């Protein structure tokens, strides 16, 4: 239900529609599922959390007179005996964008009430996310073996480790939580919880609807979005 054309809630496009929506009686975001509005609010607050981490990283990196470790070399990986810069990170980016695409398609098929396609695509997204977490675990253990710690590392400025573990760790936690929910929702789609008017969910008397897949999709795309910023600022800069 992502268009302004929702039954009974016709809004004019642009700022005119916004004015009548915002200034209207009782509720804002008329016709938007409450869960979706709340997910957006949550993502907005999460944006602030990640922004604070990245801004702290900017401040830490900018204010140290010691040379910052070169991420291109720190995150290089041997492939066929040749060190390839950022190879693992490039693969992780590839996997995450792939899973973002399958999620977008899952949302589309969900709204078309195509249960099978939606379920398989959510499952594919979950497996992509799991692959990402696995690669991140490998990356962490590799760096820990090389002696990177939150308080020191052999490559340069000591702050590198603390920012690295904090930022990628917090992002990895988000991915892991997303993977858990993706598996749960893949089950719910296959089990038909959103078919024929919907089955009631846990701890609620409300019926399920495919809009839940869109809400899950918002979270998953946000995780991908955060990775875009981490990739740019932490690995490439």
């Amino acid at each position, binding site marked *: 239900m992502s268009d302004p054309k929702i039954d009974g809630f016709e809004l004019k496009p642009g700022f005119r529609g916004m004015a009548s929506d915002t200034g209207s009686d009782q509720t804002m975001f008329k016709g938007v599922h409450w869960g979706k509005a709340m997910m957006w609010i949550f993502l907005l607050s999460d944006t602030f959390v990640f922004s604070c981490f990245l*801004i702290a990283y*900017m401040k830490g990196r900018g204010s140290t*007179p010691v040379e910052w470790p070169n991420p291109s070399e720190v995150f290089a990986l041997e492939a066929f005996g040749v060190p390839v810069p950022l190879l693992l990170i490039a693969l992780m980016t590839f996997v995450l964008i792939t899973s*973002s695409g399958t999620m977008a398609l899952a949302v589309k098929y969900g709204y078309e009430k195509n249960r099978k396609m939606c379920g398989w695509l959510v499952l594919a997204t979950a497996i992509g996310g799991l692959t990402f977490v696995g690669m991140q675990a490998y990356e962490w253990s590799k760096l820990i073996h090389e002696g990177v710690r939150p308080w020191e590392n052999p490559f340069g400025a000591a702050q590198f480790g603390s920012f690295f573990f904090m930022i990628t760790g917090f992002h990895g936690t988000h991915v892991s939580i997303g993977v858990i929910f993706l598996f749960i929702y893949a089950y719910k789609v296959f089990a038909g919880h959103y078919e024929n008017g919907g089955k009631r969910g846990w701890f609620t008397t409300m019926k399920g609807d495919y809009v839940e897949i869109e809400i899950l999709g918002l979270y998953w795309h946000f995780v991908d979005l955060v990775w875009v910023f981490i990739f740019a600022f932490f690995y490439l800069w």
Partner: protein
Amino acid sequence: MDDTNQINEKDKKPVDSTHKIGIYLWIWGLLFVLSFFSYMVDWYQFQGMLRWSLILFFMFAKAGLIMAFFMHLFWERYALVNVLLWPMTAIACFVFLMAAEFEYTLFSRMFYFFVGGGA
């Protein structure tokens, strides 16, 4: 199977917003291409302003595509879009504040390392 996944649904009551699959595939492809280019920035070891501006350009392009099409903000009502995007200006302000702050911290560190505190 039912026929709701047919594209020609003229005579039917419009189903909850579905967009043509082509738009998703295009955006998906573009994201791969942009990621490839941002990896190339590192591969060819561009340095200085060129590197930073390219990184930022590809980053914002990818973020914009994900938010506009995958997260449906492009089709979303204006009230929601504005509530989400305006707070970002606060983040931009914070970035500028902290950028000024790290310049100052670095300056004072260098100053007292090399010049000393007087006294």
